[in-house]
């Protein structure tokens, strides 16, 4: 086994974009898919920046599902935090999803699956960055998102009696993974085709 020493060195100035001002938050539409449905062999990362995924591809016959959370601050609670390790630090990524429904279909097709499955979520940041590459962020691509909380508070004003699901990707080695396929339009087309499946 070849030995390699990782060289953790900064490679850019710590600056803020003055031209395109950052905006906090996430947009209402997102995508969720089963972790095991992802065809990791067919997926490709950017050669220059491995934190950019150029193509996120699903296995034959599999598809992604759309998510929609209304309101001015959808997916509230979605965050990334450092997870201190003994030798190396990693990141925990949390995604909060509200499902404003509580019927048998939701219970059977979504909640029961979320409780035990592993998932990948793509969310659209309100701040696209100067080159649009910040637009779509992927959560759970490395370690997979699993449910840490699934709450159905019948008297909750926030969820209107629906479900609040919190998924977490624990100890992900990368702080952020973004989906960008040559252009923003192409990325959106690719995301739509995730939903269409094969």
């Amino acid at each position, binding site marked *: 086994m070849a030995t390699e020493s990782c060289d953790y060195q900064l490679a850019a100035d710590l600056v803020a974009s003055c031209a395109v001002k950052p905006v906090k938050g996430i947009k209402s539409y997102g995508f969720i898919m089963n972790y095991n449905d992802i*065809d990791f*062999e*067919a997926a490709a990362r950017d050669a220059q920046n491995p934190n950019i995924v150029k*193509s*996120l*591809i*699903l*296995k*034959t*016959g*599999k*598809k*992604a599902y759309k998510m929609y959370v209304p309101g001015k601050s959808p997916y509230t609670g979605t965050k990334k935090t450092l997870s201190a390790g003994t030798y190396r630090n990693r990141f925990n990524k949390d995604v909060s999803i509200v499902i404003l*429904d509580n019927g048998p*279909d939701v219970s059977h*097709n979504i909640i029961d699956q979320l409780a035990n499955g592993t998932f990948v979520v793509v969310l659209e940041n309100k701040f696209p960055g100067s080159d649009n590459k910040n637009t779509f962020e992927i959560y759970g691509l490395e370690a997979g998102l699993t449910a840490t909380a699934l709450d159905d508070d019948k008297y909750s004003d926030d969820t209107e009696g629906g479900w609040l699901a919190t998924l977490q990707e624990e100890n992900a080695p990368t702080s952020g993974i973004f989906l960008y*396929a*040559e252009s923003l*339009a*192409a990325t959106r*087309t*690719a*995301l*739509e*085709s*995730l*939903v*269409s*499946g*094969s």
Partner: protein
Amino acid sequence: MRSRFQSGFSSSDRLLLDSLHRKLFGKDITKTGCSDCYRDAYVIIVNHLKKTKTMPKTPNYVLKGGALIHPFGTSKFYTNPISDEVAEEHLSNFPDEINKYAHYPDDWEARAAAFAKRKVAEIEAKKTHEEVEKVTPAADNSEEIENLKVQLTEAQEAAAKAELLRTEAENKVRELEEENTNLEKRIEELNAKTGNQTASDGEGVESEDVALLRMELETAKADLDAANEEIATLKTDNRALKAANTRLKNNGAKDTE
């Protein structure tokens, strides 16, 4: 699936309905968050299939979900449904990306190679065509040729007209020469008669008839001279027209070459 219409479709039923809806109508079921949406889609699909009585054909190439094809040198992106041509062009350039396809024909490699061959042949044919276009005169030259051809036709018509005039003039000259000969004979005859008359009368005065004949003779001579001059002019014009005709014919032959 019909038996589960009331109780609710299973997840595999829903996948099948999704797939059929896409194949038949080229789009996803609009709302999928409720069980009625799939029931509606089921009814729409069944009605459509009853009407058309044909199941949708499965395309030769089907991309996996999320896979995107971007042909080199274009700004187009393709997802499902994808045409054979686009898929084979992509695979001829990137055979390693066969893993982007969910379904593909067994002989996809041969198809991609055939496509590449066709493409090369097309490029070569295009190159040859461009070279031929470079060698042959451009549109402006062809216009010039057309003009020269028109000029040549006009010159040929003028030459034919001149030839006709020349023939007419020659005929006229002949007629005038004959008339001249006749007139000279008549003058001689009249002179002879006048001589005899003078000798018999002893007066030496020409009669009115003789004077008229002399005038007629002078007029005929003047006509003859004019005809001769006209002949000379026509001959000169004819020579010039023949020379011009020859030049134009030579130019036309060169341009056609």
